[in-house]
């Protein structure tokens, strides 16, 4: 699998999505930020997005350990993301 980082693609605005990614708990520690905006190709999958960010930040969680939320609701990993969506990868919770 290839991870591309192509500024040139941004000129084709129809194929670019800006995704806000929020981080919590150990993912925030590892990303060293609360949130970032990521520009990705249209129809980028959630799995692709996590793999990219995982390589960038060195996340210790594998995707199988995480849940994912889109726009403040839990989502399935197979759900499509849209331009402007907010995405959060949810590491194992420990409330209660």
């Amino acid at each position, binding site marked *: 699998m*290839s991870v591309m980082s192509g500024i040139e693609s941004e000129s084709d605005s129809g194929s670019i999505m800006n995704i806000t990614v929020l981080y919590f*708990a150990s993912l925030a520690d590892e990303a060293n930020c609360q949130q970032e905006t*990521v520009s990705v190709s249209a129809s*980028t*999958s959630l799995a692709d997005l996590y793999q990219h960010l995982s390589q960038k930040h060195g996340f210790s969680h594998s995707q199988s350990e995480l849940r994912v939320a889109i726009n403040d609701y839990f989502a399935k990993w197979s759900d499509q993301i849209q331009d402007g969506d907010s995405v*959060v990868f*949810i590491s194992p*919770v420990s409330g209660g």
Partner: protein
Amino acid sequence: MTDNVPMTDSVPTTNDVHSHSMTIKRSVEEVYQLAERDGFALLDIAIDEDRLKRTLDNDSCGAFVCFEGRVRNHNNATSVDRLTYYGYDDLAINQGRAIIEQAKQRFEITHAIAIHRIGALEIGDVAVWVGVVSAHRYPAFDACRWILDTIKADIPVWKQEYYENDSSKWLSNNG
């Protein structure tokens, strides 16, 4: 997996990577209104258990069951000094609303309210409160336990424990 992959990333906007998950945006009044209406909220100060109990008062209910989860002075054999809960508020209240709705479908209860506290807590502080009222006692017990279990499994709240030697650890309910 497709060929559509991430391309460019922005830079982090702050160095305090947890501040957004230690406080909530709404006022305390709004928190209790939300809890009364939807049955769930996060709160970043001490939980007013009496207020929640009064909110649940109902003359048709013979049974009130509540659970309080308090910060213990130990976890397994390790002595705990204090801990901090972090929460993803917007997802938590959406998921919390769904949990309470589902509890009312699954059990013969009249109403249920749960609040989870976030931020820095001391030993003995109440971290989570769940209260249920019903006509009869068993549905109140069953629903209270189920709501608590489901909160622990599904509500996006994370606990970091601090120990006597100044170390700390992210915990997992499923680990």
